[in-house]
């Protein structure tokens, strides 16, 4: 119970620290913040109004507390040009990013798990070596280069799939999924080597354990040993890394979203930077970091549920 309280305190502390940094992101802008934020639309009246609204004549800590109060009541500020509420814009973009993240993890794990298991089982074979070289090659490729390559082949030359042109889910599942194929594959191919190498090395460790020798001695077929006995104890760290990656993609799909014109949170971030919407940028950074922390927390929970050792400890 005390440990649980401590970890909650840790999360709250981290969230506060993240909020301070997000706040400073705008507060520390060089020069007159209000002029910088309004940019082209800066008239003396509007600058004065924004200064008033942001409380720029107040000391920094008071401004932070006021800002934090707004944030906690769901007010992340408004876009300067369109006047839309930042949180509403982010939330309208969130489903696209979430779909992208989920599909990417499914594809990445779908490729990495069979190859990882097999190459651990056939450690040192030519298949294993080829897999590892392939992994290093994929690790050396930026996702956007994979994306360019896929666009060139499948969208421009073969014309099988659209490069851009996002269709919302409610306007047709098929068309929606079609638009996700290339971005998902681009992102997944970058994550495959990470998952594969991790699973392979854990699996090699597990396969040397006594209970595997026992299962083998009992004459269980290989595939059952691999999938039923060896996989679960070998996937604990994989779960953590998948969790971290999902969190990272909350904002980390930026380049791919931009490339394939997917209207997600990452694309919003880039656009807000292009348009120098500093307040919008601040809101997105805060939102994405918060999601990142929450997803990491959930990952720890899932880890505890799957890890048999932790289960026994938590049983009392």
């Amino acid at each position: 119970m005390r440990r649980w309280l401590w970890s909650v305190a840790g999360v709250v502390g981290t969230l506060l620290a993240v909020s301070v940094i997000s706040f400073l992101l705008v507060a520390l802008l060089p020069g007159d913040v209000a002029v910088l934020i309004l940019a082209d639309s800066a008239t003396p009246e509007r600058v004065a109004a924004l200064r008033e609204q942001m409380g720029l004549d107040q000391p920094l800590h008071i401004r932070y507390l006021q800002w934090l109060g707004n944030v906690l009541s769901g007010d992340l500020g408004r876009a300067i040009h369109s006047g839309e509420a930042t949180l509403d814009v982010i939330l309208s973009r969130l489903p696209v990013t979430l779909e992208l993240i989920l599909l990417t993890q499914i594809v990445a794990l779908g490729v990495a798990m069979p190859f990882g298991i097999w190459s651990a089982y056939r450690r040192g074979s030519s298949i294993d070596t080829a897999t590892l070289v392939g992994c290093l090659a994929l690790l050396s490729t930026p996702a956007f280069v994979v994306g360019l390559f896929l666009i060139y082949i499948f969208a421009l030359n073969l014309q099988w799939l659209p490069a851009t042109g996002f269709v919302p889910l409610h306007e047709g599942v098929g068309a929606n999924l079609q638009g996700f194929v290339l971005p998902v594959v681009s992102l997944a191919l970058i994550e495959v080597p990470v998952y594969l190498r991790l699973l392979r090395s854990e699996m090699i460790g597990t396969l040397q354990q006594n209970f595997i020798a026992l299962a083998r001695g009992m004459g269980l077929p290989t595939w059952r040993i691999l999938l039923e006995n060896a996989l679960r104890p070998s996937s604990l760290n994989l779960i953590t890394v998948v969790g971290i990656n999902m969190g990272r993609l909350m904002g980390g799909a930026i380049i791919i979203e931009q490339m394939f014109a997917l209207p997600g949170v990452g694309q919003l971030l880039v656009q807000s930077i292009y348009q120098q919407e500093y307040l919008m940028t601040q809101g997105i950074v805060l939102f994405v970091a918060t999601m990142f922390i929450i997803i990491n927390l959930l990952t720890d929970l899932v880890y505890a549920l799957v890890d048999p050792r932790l289960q026994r400890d938590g049983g009392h």
Partner: protein
Amino acid sequence: MRRYPLPVVVSLAWLVLVALATLLAAWLPMQDPTKQSLLNMLAPPSLERWFGADSLGRDVFSRTIHGFRISFAVSFGAAAVGLVFGGALGICAGYFRGWSERMILIGVNIVLAFPPLVLIIAMVAYPGEALLKVVLALGIVYIPTVTRVARANTLLFSEKEFVTAARAAGMSDARLIVRELLPNLVPVLLTYFLLLVAVGVLAEAGLSYLGLSVPPPVPTLGQMMASEQANALEAPHAIFFPAGMLFLTIFALNLVGEEVQRRIDDRAGTA
């Protein structure tokens, strides 16, 4: 001494070649990377123009080599920032323990609470000198990882006899760190150097693809690909030659980096 595998030797040779070409770019008989020529628009690769020309008739080979200058400036600079600051913080935390260790670890966790790319982009969005911003932003994102590694190794070495002996002999903290700990830590940290450089080249390409690295007319690899994307069908060479060079270089860095790490691990294992 174990022999170096062939792929590692080839990778090293490739890296030396690229490094020399980038360093000597100004003196090599290459076209001006910014010189436009309407006659050569999207010209295919030829003997005289190895990688062809882009949509403004600029020489793609020359632009790629010049693009690598930014890549390397960013990745070496950022790796240096990360190693120096991360190393110093890690040693402080691991050697002095107590409240300084707690503060440093809290700081590390705060930086790690942001998705790295988002943090980098947020910092790069600041007004200011582009190259410096990118180097610092990337370097700051490296610091937590390096700090953790440096701290873990400092803890390890601090328990060894030579440190205890030095302390018993009355050596001051500063001298002990410089004379005894640093010589042992530097090799460990340097193994990360090549891998951080590889990550840096990748990250710079991504940032410049988004137009958030050094602005044109200075050629950068990502921005070259982004601006020629629309002509991919007529002139794939303008995208895929720079992309291929980028890939080969990062691949070589990773191969050499992993080999160096393996060797250091082996040495630590046998020592």
